């Protein structure tokens, strides 16, 4: 379990740093222990059980499949294609999400016009959009960008919009009484106030970009990790599926870690 920092620490910067390290993840020992346990159970099952390899491949088979994908060059191509789609879709979606969120959060007419529609669109799962995206944008890159950026947009929009509803009134009053112009009030007070909410939305957006990416690639793609998964199903290469799924998990965790660390630097005052 995590322990809270000493309340009377005279070196508060120190405290803040240890807090961010704690958030970043479990202690290294716990990670090793957790993976070690799962791996050994998996290895035991692989060595002694009668479960066929097409249902549960052994760890060394999965490792072999990963190496195979690496050496025949498809893994690098797939990684490039998938990360490119996730990255571009995420960039478009989060930029629009922040922009529209600030707008609907701040401008009454935008809130009235867009708010209800966006709230209605929010519960639609990404995978349900794939057929429509293919009709609109074809099976090329366009439909992937669309599905990813759409899902990311809604998550980031919602958090930004929500954050704008709860701007601390005293900050705004303090800014006004200290002679801030509306523009400076927006840039120097509202934006930092809402930044923790935006960050929460962006973090969610990163996770969703992988989710929706694979959904988009499962149907109608000629490269990418999702496509390779689908292909592995056709050849009943369960070992490849495991390798690809593990890679997807690791990628998502790594992306979340990076965003979380960058965010903690950016929103350094929010260390609760």
């Amino acid at each position, binding site marked *: 379990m995590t322990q809270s920092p000493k309340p009377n620490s005279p070196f508060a910067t120190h405290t803040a740093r240890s807090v961010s390290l704690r958030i970043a993840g479990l202690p290294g020992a716990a990670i090793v222990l957790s993976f070690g346990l799962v791996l050994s159970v998996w290895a035991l099952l692989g060595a002694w059980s009668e479960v066929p390899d097409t249902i549960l491949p052994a760890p060394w088979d999965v490792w072999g499949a990963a190496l195979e994908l690496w050496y025949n060059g498809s893994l690098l191509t797939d990684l490039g294609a998938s990360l490119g789609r996730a990255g571009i879709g995420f960039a478009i979606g989060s930029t629009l999400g922040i922009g529209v969120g600030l707008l609907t959060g701040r401008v009454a007419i935008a809130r009235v016009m867009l708010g209800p529609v966006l709230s209605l669109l929010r519960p639609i799962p990404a995978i349900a959009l794939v057929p429509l995206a293919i009709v609109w944008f074809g099976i090329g890159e366009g439909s992937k960008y669309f599905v990813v950026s759409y899902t990311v947009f809604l998550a980031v929009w919602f958090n930004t919009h929500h954050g704008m509803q709860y701007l601390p009134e005293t900050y705004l009053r303090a800014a006004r009484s200290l002679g801030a112009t509306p523009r400076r009030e927006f840039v120097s007070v509202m934006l930092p106030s809402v930044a923790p909410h935006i960050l929460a939305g962006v973090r969610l957006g990163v996770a969703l970009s992988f989710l929706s990416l694979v959904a988009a690639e499962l149907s109608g793609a000629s490269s990418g990790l999702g496509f390779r998964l689908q292909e592995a199903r056709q050849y009943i290469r369960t070992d490849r599926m495991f390798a690809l799924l593990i890679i997807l998990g690791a990628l998502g965790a790594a992306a979340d870690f990076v965003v979380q660390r960058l965010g903690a630097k950016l929103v350094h*005052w929010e260390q609760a």
Partner: protein
Amino acid sequence: MRGAHVKIEGLTIRHGRSRDRAHGADIALRNIDLDLQPGSFTALIGPSGCGKSTLVNAIAGFTPPAQGRVWIDGAQVHGPPPEVGVVFQQYALFPWLTVLGNVRFGLKQFRLGRRAEVERAEAALAEVGLAELAHRYPQQLSGGQRQRVAIARTFATGPRVLLMDEPFGALDAQTRVDMQELLLALWRKRRATVLFVTHDVDEAILLADHVRVMSHAPGQLVMHYQLTQPRPCKLSRAGRDLLMLREDILGLLRPPGTFRPEHLS
């Protein structure tokens, strides 16, 4: 820089809740007249929820009046006037700025240039004894230190009217005494017109030369005491007159029907 003249006439403020309007329950302040002479120090005291903060918000230009007007030196208040400084109970320091950054925030409006701005902010911090903490963040400071920063931030802009909304309410007793001394020292130098909201009778008597008492909601000013001690105010205001005044104010603040010691005899 002298204090400004604050004049309030027939001020009525309603809450935003329109469903209360029919039976008048939305009225926060009713028909307030108030005149604060330049350079005076007025304590505003009243039971919690009576509308003291609402009055401060109206003078600060945060809340538009339903009826009546507020003038600062003859100019009617519409938005936050530049000559009015506000110190909030919750400090309202920006956590994303350092202590120095917070003080500089209020100085941007004067377009001083970086050097002069930093110098003036550092001078303001030195005045409240926090020069060494300039590069810390507010959340790394104690409550008393935070309120010092807030006071420095407000004083640095040279306000001619200073509104303080229970600024020391969240502080422990000793820190509170230190802050009161600091405030009086700063005020003696600047002579801004001060309106100081408190629910502490002793604090009001200690600091102010005018004490205004406000009634339960809807808020109305029911009593005005003028303290005649010579200026500058001494911290050791004692004596029979003040004790009687204190009892008097406490009596006004007690809602009718509550227990009083004399009922026992």
